[in-house]
């Protein structure tokens, strides 16, 4: 029995010791307790307790304020530890919205690495500090942002017209006249969110005319109508998140929606990106990613060399600068929409959900940049990617001069079945008006004006058999046997042959396409004789014979 008593004594003492240790650890040694113990407010030291921001509407109970005390409601005056910095002034009060809605991370946690989401089984790590504004994408998925060139022009216009001399926007500009009651003009950082006076120009002009001295006289000048449009674009995109707006415009310039869907709109070649910002770091490989194992780094490397981080990826490397890669990463991280009650959703998102409005600016240039630029290039001059067929140049002046609108419309709407060009006229891509806008934009990509076509659509009468002979000797090297395509586009394509006029086909062969491998076949070349008009008509007759089936 003595042994048993000893056993009881030792084990009980050990249990007591461990329990005391556990109690001490929980009640005194927790990190948040040690941090709060340093806190001081105007009334002295702050009470040490678990703190949280609760918002049942958003479904959050964020305990970040147990360490970041000064970001809690009413606690801005607390100081004493490095972590007690008040939150930067932002549109949404963190004391109301909580923290995780924008920053990600694990709000319920009370330990640092758990709270920051850096633990294995939390799939939504906190956004890197430099990418915090990507968190706006949780709710703001429908910002009407245009593509890069327009946005850049708008930003430059605002600067060029010297609006910054009186107005502060996104932390830049504005003059303080303390003796005249503060800022010269209102802060325009949020004109995209709240209504602004659309008659501002008339009023500015009137004030300027009435003034005898001062900034109204000296700094303001009347603005022409083109610049007015640019300024309106600029003001419409001021939502207190310039990084996000800029990143979105980059996204809308490189044709990402041509392969990927976001919010149900886009192509089908690549994965749906609607919630790409929530990609789980536990599900990806960081083997070839330089730097720390953060999702931001992974995504950036994914843009530089997709196949190295995603096995079997067909995505071509983004031919963009490092800065643009950073912005594309930023935007992708912002694709983190959450379904919330309507009262928390911005109006443009509600309109997009209920009325089918676009989640981006729907002008032709932006639509082109969003859907087409990925394959056809931002400048429309096509792309050649290793391992894939090359995508034709659609801004080629020789092409645009003779391609009728009907051909362009049909090609875009129905695509080229059997080839890489998908049909874009569908509910989750473009509607008829969009297609018109895109074609109008394409026409602006080259100076060539569309020529009139005097002939009827089908006028060629040639010898198809002779044409076939000519084709295999002259054309099949690039266009493949039977016109199946190769270096050059497929010519046996149903949609092409249905929508192309004979004039188009004849002129293309005659003139070629400058800057591409399609030379003018009226001219002789070292490797083949010149073709005559009747040769060309025979070829066209042969091509027409391909219509409706392979030969």
């Amino acid at each position, binding site marked *: *029995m003595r042994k048993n008593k000893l056993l*009881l004594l030792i*084990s009980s003492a050990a*249990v007591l010791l461990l329990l005391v240790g556990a109690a001490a650890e929980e009640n005194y040694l927790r990190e948040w307790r040690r941090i709060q113990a340093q806190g001081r407010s105007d009334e002295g030291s702050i009470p040490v307790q678990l703190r949280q921001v609760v918002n049942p509407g958003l479904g959050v109970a964020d305990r970040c304020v147990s360490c970041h005390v000064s970001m809690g409601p009413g606690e801005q005056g607390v100081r004493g530890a490095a972590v007690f910095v008040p939150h930067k002034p932002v549109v949404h009060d963190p004391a109301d919205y909580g923290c995780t809605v924008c920053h990600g991370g694990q709000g319920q946690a009370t330990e640092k690495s*758990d709270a920051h989401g850096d633990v294995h089984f939390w799939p939504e790590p906190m956004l890197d500090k430099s990418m915090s504004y990507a968190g706006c994408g949780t709710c703001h998925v429908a910002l009407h942002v245009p593509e890069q060139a327009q946005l850049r022009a708008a930003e430059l216009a605002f600067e060029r017209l010297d609006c910054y001399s009186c107005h502060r926007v996104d932390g830049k500009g504005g003059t303080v006249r303390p003796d005249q009651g503060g800022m010269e003009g209102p802060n325009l950082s949020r004109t995209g969110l709240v209504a602004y006076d659309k008659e501002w120009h008339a009023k500015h002009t009137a004030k300027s005319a009435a003034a005898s001295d001062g900034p109204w006289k000296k700094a303001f000048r009347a603005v022409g109508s083109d610049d007015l449009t640019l300024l309106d674009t600029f003001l419409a995109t001021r939502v207190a998140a310039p990084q996000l707006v800029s990143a979105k415009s980059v996204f809308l310039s490189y044709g990402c929606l041509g392969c990927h869907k976001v919010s149900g709109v886009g192509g089908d070649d690549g994965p749906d990106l609607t919630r790409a910002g929530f990609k*789980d770091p536990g599900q990806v490989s960081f083997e070839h990613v330089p730097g720390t194992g953060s999702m931001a780094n992974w995504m950036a490397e994914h843009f530089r060399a997709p196949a190295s981080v995603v096995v079997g990826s067909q995505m071509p490397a983004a031919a963009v600068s490092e800065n643009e890669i950073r912005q594309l990463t930023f935007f992708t991280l912002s694709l983190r929409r959450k379904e919330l009650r309507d009262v928390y959703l911005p109006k443009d998102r509600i309109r997009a959900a209920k009325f089918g409005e676009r989640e981006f600016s729907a002008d032709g240039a932006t639509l082109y940049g969003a859907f087409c630029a990925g394959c056809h290039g931002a400048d429309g001059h096509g792309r050649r990617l290793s391992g894939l067929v090359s995508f034709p140049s659609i801004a080629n002046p020789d092409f645009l001069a003779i391609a009728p609108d009907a051909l362009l419309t049909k090609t875009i709407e129905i695509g080229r079945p059997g080839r890489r060009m998908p049909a874009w006229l569908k509910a989750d891509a473009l509607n008829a008006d969009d297609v018109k806008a895109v074609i109008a934009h394409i026409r602006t990509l080259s100076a060539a004006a569309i020529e009139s076509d005097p002939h009827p659509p089908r006028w060629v009468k040639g010898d198809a058999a002779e044409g076939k002979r000519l084709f295999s000797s002259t054309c099949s090297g690039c266009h493949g046997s039977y016109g199946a395509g190769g270096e050059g586009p497929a010519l046996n394509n149903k949609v092409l042959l249905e929508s192309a006029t004979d004039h188009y086909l004849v002129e293309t062969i005659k003139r070629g396409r400058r800057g591409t491998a399609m030379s003018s076949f009226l001219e002789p070349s070292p490797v083949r004789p010149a073709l005559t008009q009747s040769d060309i008509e025979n070829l066209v007759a042969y091509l027409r014979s391909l219509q409706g089936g392979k030969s």
Partner: protein
Amino acid sequence: MTPTTKDALREFSDNLKAVPRRVMETAFRTGPPTTDRTRSTFVFGNVFLHLHAVRTHRWSLKWTTTMGLGIMSVSAFLIALVTGVMLMFYYKPYPEAAYESIKDIHFVVPTGRLIRNLHRWSANLMVVAVILHMARAFYTAAYRKPREYNWLMGIGLLVVTLGLSFTGYLLPWDQLAYWAITIGANIAQSPREITDALGITDYFDPGGFQRLLLLGSDMVGAEALIRFYLLHVMILPLALAALMGVHFWRIRKDGGMVRPADADDQLFRQPREEALPIFTEAPAKTYHLAAIVRGRTSNVGRGPENTVPSMPHLFYAELGVLMVTLLVCLALSLVSDAPLKELANPSVPENPAKAPWYFLGLQEMVAFSAFMGGIGIPSIVLIGLALIPYLDRETEGTGRWFGGPGGWPLVRLSIVLGLAAPILIESFVIRFGWLREWFPSVPQLVITMLNPGTLLTAVYAFFSMWCIRRYGSTRAGALALFTCFLCGFLVLTIVGTYFRGPNWVFYWSPSEWPKH
């Protein structure tokens, strides 16, 4: 005569002053347990303690007799019970709220993290303890007459313990829980393997019925969660308590722990400082005769008295085991958190989706035949276990470790075979595959009948039969079979735990698992 007012008032105040003393006296009527009589009454006069015998045989108190495993099982259960009730203050058994409530318990509930860890570790320890306890009872042949029925109660307790562990597994509603239970429910449906092969599923579908009963729906969802919660906090604990009551009562009725026939002689050779005969003078009554019964009481025919008062000897041992169990659970809880993976996501299966560790051995076999691995072989095992006391009617070696014909050498041989057979079979299957790889169109029923699990069972059964013949004893066969199955369980569980990766493919280490 009635006392005067003055006396009555004095009496009132005297009574009031005597209240503390009287409360103690009326609550603890037997007084401090300093003599054998008071020690006796301390035990049988107390509602919580009177399940114990007043005197305990010294043999039962030896550590080598029982290893304290039974008390360890009860202790682990008590810890799980108390911590479980505490967790019920905050746990919410609805899919939208369950995961969050566990996170809250871990992060903000005072002592929540420790309580949850304790619950998880004590539950795991309980499963280990009951299996080891069963092994001890088997190896000391404690199932023999008159303890056969208690052995059956023990098997019932084992099943309920595993059920408690399994139902609790779902409650956190994380990926681990959701997919483990998805597998479990589909195993419950595996009788369809047989009924489909026979073509009678439309008329007779016990598999589908079992699954529907478990899940309350055709998918793992809110209905399943509330059913598992009900089972886990109410039905199964009550069943466990009832079975425990019978189990302990039976121990009393069977005369305490099993002892070898020569236990008293063996003890004679050991110091007897605490053993003194009860009756040295003319016996004065020590306890009442409750009834006249037919037959012998458990003490008739016994040799010299070798018992000691349960209070304090047995209680020190029990309390010692309790505190050691608590210490182990506490130490584990302080260094290792109970797992919690991502929120359950029905569209993203875990890969590999693994059952709780005690079912991983079965899951190894389920990989070939869901029915055999999930229902067939476990049923065979349970029935086999239940039959042991009824097939082994011998008496040699009762109460002795590895007692009976064959003894330790036979057990040693069985360990070798019991480990070698599954290792060889597993190696073969991992290297060469099984029937489906060689004959893609072989009917499933063939694989149900002929798969590594049934093969292993057959090997063990043949070995057991051989032992029966070789040693001329059923006990030898039982020793062999039990040992083999224990080893098989061990090997299969280890393989399922450490060497199976995504798609249940064999990997030597998790670092070799393919990355997405």
